């Protein structure tokens, strides 16, 4: 393993862990959405809860996976 790769390995590992954490959050929210939709009868409450869950998932993907902050920060490091 080259010196550069040895230096980059911990940073890559940390970034991969962030990705894994975000995926777990997304998976949990998706399961919660499904359970809420199956169990709830109130349309208004269901739409409200599903909207909150979808917005939370969208925020997680846009922030951590799509790196929207780089639009104004302009750096590439993970």
């Amino acid at each position: 393993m080259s010196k550069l790769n040895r230096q980059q390995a911990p940073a890559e590992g940390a970034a991969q862990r962030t990705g894994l954490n975000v995926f777990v959050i997304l998976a949990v929210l998706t399961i919660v959405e499904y359970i809420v939709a199956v169990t709830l009868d109130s349309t208004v409450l269901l739409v409200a809860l599903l909207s909150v869950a979808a917005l939370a998932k969208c925020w997680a993907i846009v922030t951590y996976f799509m790196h929207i902050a780089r639009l104004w920060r302009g750096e590439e490091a993970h």
Partner: protein
Amino acid sequence: MAAATQAAPAPHGKAHADPVAHAWERVKINRLGLWLFIFSDAALFALFAASRFYLSGTARDPHLNQILGLGITSILLLSSASAYRAETAFAHGNTARGRGMLLVTLLLGLVFVCGVGFEWATAEFPVHEQYGTAFYTMTGMHALHVVTGLLFLLIIWARSGDGHYSGGPAVWPVTAVIIYWHFVDVVWVFFYPTLYLVK
């Protein structure tokens, strides 16, 4: 070649002493362009979602395959995670892992498209009914974006074998395709509850 690159004037007339800094500047502009495209495409999908509620209210067809819906949603989320791993690996110069993760993403995307195809083939609601119109239009348009993303991923995967994207600003094409792939996932994050869960 390198000397010629350094001697070439910048488009706005200012000489760039550091070609790497110039390359990052171009990435910044390209990123802005990509996000402008994403915002305009998001507006189209938002209109589709609005039309679903306009056409059929919150009612959904009882024949929808809920397990299949949850399954393909999970597959697409998983593909986003593998795409992120691919991008991270390329950004850190780990091309082998990056290519492997791109391949995983491609396969998961294919499974998603097959899932949508299966849903279309087995759905018991007709396209000319209100809910059917919304369902087929929304899933069809989304699947078209998925297929486009798969083509981009395939191109990136094929070119990465020659060491095209080996760290720094050279990784931008991989990043751009993967941002697009995540966008396709974001659209489904809203389409899944809109089509399958709201009642």
